[in-house]
Structures are given as C-alpha cells and as structure tokens.
C-alpha cells in the first residue's frame, strides 16, 4: 500500500508545479481599420504625460531626464493636478454611478520605447505607472466607500475605474535605437 502511495506521490511531485502565475494585465489596442477614417481629434498636449525609455534604459518624462524612483510621484501628481495648473491635465464633468456628477481627469499616459530597451526596465516603468494609478483609485475608493479598492464589488470597481480612467497607451512602435 505504502509503496503505491509513494509512487503516486513521486509522480505528482515530478509532474506538477506549485507556483501560481502573477503578472501585469494589459489590453492591446486593436489594429486600426484602414477603411475607417481615423479620429482626427488630437488629445490636448496638456493631458498627455509622455514617458520615453531609450536603448540605454534612460527615462525621459515630458522631455526631462528623470530618475526611475521619481516616476511614480510624477505620475501621481500629473493625474491628480492638485493646484489646477494650466500645464497639467484638465477635468471634465461626467455622470458616474455612485458618484453623481463629478469632474474626472482627462489625463493620458503615453509610453514609448526603443527597440533596444531592456524588457525588465520597460516592465518596471509600466509597473510604476500602473501603481500610481492604482494608488489614486484606492484613495478614492476609501474616501467614497470606506473600503480598499480590492474589496469593492464589480459595479463599484468600474465606477472607480472611470473616475481615474487614465489610459496608459503604448504608441505605435517606431523602429529606432537598434
């Protein structure tokens, strides 16, 4: 009996893995249809946070050479725009369930990379941007509903998502910096 059990045990030890996969969820944009005219409404420059990573893994935020450690704070301030500065994103009043009519930010983050950029750096930059957005969503969830974002139900989550939509767009790739 014990022999058979040992045999099965060893089989399972060899054939299975314990680790669960974790990762950053992203949604890729669909390929634009050439027959459909492109949306010519350009996003206002003040609403875009431009983040570039070059082949030497250096970070350029809004044209400024930036340390990686500062990125999260810069993104946080950019989305929040606490002092309503004219160079930072504008707000737009929309109706959201649970919130009513609120002024939500029109901020967009644009991330660009060279083809020589290291994947690890690219992912770390994405992580910082997602983290800055997640922090703001969590704050508003706590403020409005008194519970952390993770524990909200689906409807409330999507309302909070709309409050801080902040798409992180990946520009159409350019083949530079080989």
């Amino acid at each position, binding site marked *: *009996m*014990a022999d058979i*059990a*040992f045999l*099965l*045990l060893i089989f*399972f*030890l060899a*054939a*299975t*893995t*314990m680790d*669960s*996969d*974790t*990762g*950053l*969820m*992203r*949604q*890729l*944009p*669909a*390929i634009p249809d050439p027959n459909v005219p492109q949306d010519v409404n350009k996003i206002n420059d003040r609403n875009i946070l431009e983040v570039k990573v070059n082949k030497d*893994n250096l970070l350029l935020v809004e044209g400024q050479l930036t340390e990686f450690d500062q990125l999260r704070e810069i993104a946080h301030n950019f989305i929040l725009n606490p002092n309503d500065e004219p160079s930072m994103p504008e707000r737009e009043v929309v109706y959201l369930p649970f919130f009513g009519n609120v002024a939500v930010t029109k901020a967009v983050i644009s991330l660009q*990379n*060279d*083809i*020589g*950029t*290291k*994947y*690890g*750096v*690219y*992912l*770390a930059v*994405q*992580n910082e941007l*997602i*983290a800055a957005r*997640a922090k703001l969503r969590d704050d508003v969830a706590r403020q409005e509903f008194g519970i952390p974002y993770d524990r909200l139900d689906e409807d409330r989550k999507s309302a909070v998502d709309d409050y801080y939509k902040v798409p992180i767009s*990946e520009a159409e*790739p350019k*083949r530079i910096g*080989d």
Partner: protein
Amino acid sequence: MARFVKTGKKTIKAISTSSLPDIVFMILFFFMAVTTMRETDVMVTVRIPEATEGKVLEKKSLASFIYIGEPLESFQALYGKEPKIQLNDSFKELADIQDFIAQEREQLNEADKAKMLVVLKIDRDTKMGIVTDVKQALRRASALKIMYANTNVDKITSF
C-alpha cells in the same frame, strides 16, 4: 509467577509501519490539491522581471503562454544565443504566432473565446524589439488581452 520473569536479552521492537500509507496518502492529497500540472518544458532561460502590481492569474485554462528568451545551453548549438520565441514545446518564428493563437482559441468554449488571455513570459534582459514584434503579431491575431508575467515583490530592486 515464573512466567513473568524476564529471561534473555531485551529486544527493541520495530516501529509499526501500518499507518505509513495513511501518512503518505495525506501528503499525496496535499500535493494534488495545491499544485497544477506542468504544461510545457521551458526551453529558454526566463528570468521573470520584478514588479509590485502583479495580479494573480486565476483561470489558467483561459491562458496561453508565450516564452521569449535565450535558448538553454543544450539548445544553443542548434539555435544560437539570440532570444527565441517558444510556443508550446518548440521554437517558433514570429509568423507562427497567428496560427498558434488561432489553434489555442479553437480549444476554448465559445463563451470563453472572448476571455482568452495570452501570458508573456519574457526574460528581463530581452530587448524590446522582439517583444514589440510579438505584440504586433498578437494585435494582428486579435488576441488583445495580455499579461506580462512578473514576480511580485514589495519593492523593485533590480530590473
């Protein structure tokens, strides 16, 4: 009373092994419950990058895996040291991704097809060129939900 007088040497009795199967079965069931089947043998070196915001992949059945990295040493004679794409159990080229996605999508239920997720397990030292190419191929195959695999840490210490 002579019956109770101990005679001869003392012998140590062997431990009873009658409960051994129970214990082993217990361990077996534990492993069956907490582990999942290994789907593929990874043939490339993948050192998953660190991040703090990773979400746990809940439905593994909806996920397809793409591995990108330097081939393992035993394959380097054949495939060289440049990062390669691995789909299922073999090295593939960019052009094969579309077929791979179509094939994976075919295996899902009608209801699950829209929820299909592609998990990208990419070595942290890979250059973005090949990653961008793969992303473009996925867009063409309309597999738009992707997940960049990472290991969750409290603070990123190395890229």
